[in-house]
């Protein structure tokens, strides 16, 4: 049987019922990785030995009844910007090429407590800056549906690892769409939770006011289950929010009667691929047929989200990335004259072009004389964008639209024109600015054979609305996998 075709929750059940062992499950993942990793490059670091050792420990705890949760014994891949104690964590950057954390990020720790077995760390755009996973210092990741195309980014490796069935699920992080856009390009499901829901402790910061960790998996049930495992109030993260409830799986019901779904007209204008448009509207239609109330409306201010985002994210990045100076960890240049020259040379040689571009822009917009005109202006714009969503959620439970304007572009096409690449995030970025939960899931395949994603956005703390809509829509479809999936079981 091809174990890797199963979802995380299905695997967890089989392990619990003693139909399979944790070791068999880990070995099935490793076999699939051996079969396809050379073609797609999902991982920066593999931890075969650690995973097999952990498999035994977890099995013992399951056998003794200590671990009983739905994810106990199920293998997982972690995006390489989350610290894992004793396991290389690079952020796909040369500046952290040899960094071994002394502690584990809270979200990963929560998974470990649930009995997860970490297989390895996934490739990403350097410091999560990019939309294609091509800015990684360790080479690009390729789309399992067609290896001439990008997987999206920045959580590209996490999404390809799930789509190609190297692991049943993975963690990603989303600052401007970095979970939802690659999920869309790879034909998998990904959730960016409400800001503050999952602790950022141990997540190497890019844009702190926007970053959130979230799950990537083959279906909505997995995503809700994983989110339930990783979400927690954490005093170590000063922006962690104490939520009223941490239950997400009770929303897994096939019932959308009366659910109010808004379709923003401004998400279907110029620049949107016709095939994407048709598939996304098809998803809305399917939900309407199930009893949801679907209506078009004008969201407004959509075109201002990207410029505001690049000011805010770059400003925060320039500050967050000041810590990489070649003193306490990571890369230090070979030859230097004095302290400042050592800082400058280490950073200039350690960071890639996209990271330098954003640090420069961020330093500029925060510099005296420009702070008001750019940084404060962007924060005021953010307030207005939040207001437009607040207004929309007075009328709707879910906002439905595309996750990205197109399906996955070809490798090399995006990096030549940064602004064009930035525009690809038009439907995802405002969700981060407003702190909202958003989900992307497959809704079709285009004529090139590449997956199309639909995005569902909810009001703050209302993940259950989008999970409910997504689950109901999922029941109308069968999951489609790339040809590459299943190779390891042959």
């Amino acid at each position, binding site marked *: 049987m091809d174990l890797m075709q199963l979802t995380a929750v299905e695997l967890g059940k089989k392990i619990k019922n003693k139909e399979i062992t944790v070791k068999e499950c880990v070995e099935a993942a490793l076999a699939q990785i051996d079969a396809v990793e050379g073609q797609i490059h999902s991982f920066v670091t593999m931890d075969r030995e650690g995973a097999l050792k952990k498999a035994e420990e977890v099995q013992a705890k399951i056998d003794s009844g200590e671990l009983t949760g739905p994810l106990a014994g199920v293998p997982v891949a972690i995006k390489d910007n989350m610290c894992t104690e004793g396991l290389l964590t690079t952020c796909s950057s040369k500046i952290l090429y040899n960094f071994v954390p*002394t502690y584990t990020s809270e979200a990963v720790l929560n998974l470990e407590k649930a009995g997860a077995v970490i297989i390895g760390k996934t490739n990403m755009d350097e410091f999560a800056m990019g939309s294609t996973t091509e800015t990684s210092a360790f080479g690009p990741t390729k789309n399992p549906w067609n290896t001439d195309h990008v997987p999206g980014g920045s959580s590209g490796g996490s999404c390809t690892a799930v789509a190609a069935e190297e692991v049943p699920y993975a963690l990603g992080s989303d600052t401007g769409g970095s979970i939802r856009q690659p999920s869309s390009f790879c034909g998998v499901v990904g959730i960016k939770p409400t800001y503050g829901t999952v602790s950022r402790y141990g997540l190497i910061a890019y844009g702190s006011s926007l970053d959130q960790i979230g799950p990537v998996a083959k279906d909505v049930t997995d995503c809700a289950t994983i989110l339930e495992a990783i979400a927690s109030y954490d005093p170590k993260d000063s922006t962690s929010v104490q939520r009223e409830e941490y239950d997400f799986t009770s929303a897994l019901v096939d019932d959308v009667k009366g659910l109010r779904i808004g379709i923003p007209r401004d998400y279907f204008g110029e620049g949107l691929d016709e095939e994407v448009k048709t598939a996304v509207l098809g998803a809305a239609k399917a939900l309407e047929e199930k009893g949801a109330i679907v209506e078009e409306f004008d969201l407004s201010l959509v075109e201002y989200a990207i410029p505001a985002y690049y000011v805010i994210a770059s400003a925060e990045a320039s500050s967050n990335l000041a810590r990489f100076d070649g003193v306490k960890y990571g890369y230090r240049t070979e030859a*230097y004259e004095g302290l400042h020259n050592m800082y400058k040379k280490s950073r200039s040689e350690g960071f890639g072009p996209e990271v*330098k571009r954003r640090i420069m822009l961020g*330093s500029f917009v925060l510099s005296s004389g420009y702070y008001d005109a750019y940084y404060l202006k962007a924060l*005021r714009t*953010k*307030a207005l964008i939040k207001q437009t969503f607040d207004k929309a959620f007075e009328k709707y439970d879910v906002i439905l639209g595309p996750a990205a304007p197109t399906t996955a572009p070809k490798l090399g096409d995006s990096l030549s024109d940064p602004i064009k690449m930035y525009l690809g995030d038009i439907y995802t970025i405002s969700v981060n600015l407003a702190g909202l939960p958003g989900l992307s899931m497959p809704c079709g395949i285009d004529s090139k054979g590449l997956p199309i994603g639909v995005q569902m956005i909810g009001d703050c703390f209302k993940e259950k609305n989008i999970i409910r809509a997504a689950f109901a829509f999922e029941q109308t479809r069968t999951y489609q996998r790339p040809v590459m999936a299943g190779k390891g079981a042959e």
Partner: protein
Amino acid sequence: MANVISDETIEYVGILAKLELSEEEKEQAKKDMGSMLDYIDKLNELDTSGVEPMSHVFPVHNVFREDVVANGNVREKILANAPKEKDGSFVVPKTVE
């Protein structure tokens, strides 16, 4: 391009960002930053007078805790990550003459 970035600006931003760019990188950075700022200038179409800048979407406050050690001593592991260390300390170039 409406925003023309001068050599002085790139030099100054390089100091703030602690980055040393080659001549070629500087030229590229001038172009990139100019076109990004042109794009960002779109925000000026919006009337934001009277709108408070929003740094966080939720009214979060600083979180205080007692200053007690919660983790164990991992000095050796931390130092193992240092590019250069000596006698339990990080080694940096001489900073005081």
